[in-house]
């Protein structure tokens, strides 16, 4: 159970969490293509720009967030996630060297996982829309 103010924080920050997760996914996706030798895993891939735009929106929203005491650990995880993902994005913009991007990216995603574990309403996978996990218990 969470109090009303924390519930408001959750509702207001789900999008920010989702966007940071999306940026992490986009970078990870490019890395896997590059590491697997796919012709689509190229350093000037347009998705790096798209990830940068989405990141800026998420980061702005994160700075505007007003966490309650209950939500403070969650918010701190998101701040740390954003800081690490920013490093990963910057590295990816220079060159798609897997290690230089993956290490901060993994750190950032771990913080997102911790954030998801610290408050309800933040899911690592969209289970509800997944085929084999989509049967929500009544």
């Amino acid at each position, binding site marked *: 159970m969470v109090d009303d103010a924390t519930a408001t924080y959750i509702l207001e920050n789900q999008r920010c969490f989702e966007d940071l997760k*999306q940026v992490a996914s*986009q970078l990870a*996706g*490019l890395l896997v*293509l590059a590491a697997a030798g796919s012709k689509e895993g190229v350093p000037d891939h347009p998705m790096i720009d798209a990830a940068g735009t989405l990141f800026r929106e998420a980061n702005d929203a994160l700075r505007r967030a007003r966490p309650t005491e209950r939500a403070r650990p969650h918010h701190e995880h998101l701040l740390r996630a954003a800081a690490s993902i920013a490093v990963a994005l910057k590295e990816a913009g220079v060159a798609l060297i*897997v290690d230089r991007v993956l290490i901060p990216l*993994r750190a950032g995603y771990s913080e997102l996982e911790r954030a998801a574990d610290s408050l309800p309403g933040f899911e690592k*996978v969209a289970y509800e829309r997944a*085929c084999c996990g989509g*049967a929500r218990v009544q």
Partner: protein
Amino acid sequence: MSAYSLWVMEYAAVPNYPQSGLIYGMHNQGTRKLPYCYVVIQGQGQLAMVDVGYNHKAHGEVLANTYGVRGWHSPREVLGEIGIQPEDISTIFITHAHFDHMGNIEDFPNAKFYLQERELSKMVWSMSLERRFRWLMLGIDPADIMRAVDLARQGRLVCVDGDRENVLPGVDLHAAFDTHTWGSMYVTVRNDLSANSQRSFVFCGDLAYGYENLRGHDPNDPEYIPIGLATGSQFNVIMTAEAMVKSVGGDVHRVIPPHEERLKDLFPSRITKAGLRITELALADGQKSQVY
């Protein structure tokens, strides 16, 4: 003569899953048990699997509490029932990139993973779309993508482009593009190793959830009924069902949907102390049964 022993290993289950999620059109027709399983292939000096299940540490609590998934057990426990350790597995075929099929890569440190290149590239493409297209990302765990990066760097990720024969002796991969997912594939084991095998099994991932997908509701008047969910087209799902059924000479029971609970009624099976089912589809010559 069987070249390989083949087991379907349950690792978790949803006791009451809506039928409509599995068989197209079965709305308001109740629920069924949906087991989560992977497949073990042993023989010819090979130890392989089809899919690896999901990572409980990452997903277990939410799946258990919110979505009713019960009884998850680790690969070490599940495979231990047939005397195998995860470290023994050398080859893994990932039918598609959903979290419950690809989500436990890290538990298999010595395996080489085969996945369709299109499954990766189209998944990444879908990530580049705007937020309103997020449905296309369903079932994808970003952490799995990061683990796949490690696999690729270690030379343990093989991106397959289309069909590939004899990946292991008598084991073929078949692409099923734009079906359940962008780059799904199914695995055929020609268990007598012959080119025109009479003893093939097809491991279909989520290209069929149950036998209704492959023969309809009336066995005397069979028809293909699409699965409950396709990112690609239901036409492609149906044509893939035809290809799979044809490849086993029309014997639909040789197409193995891992989520099909009734496998236990068709093949020798046992329930472990943990309440998980092991179904034995075939035993290689000289190997000991794991269900009797």
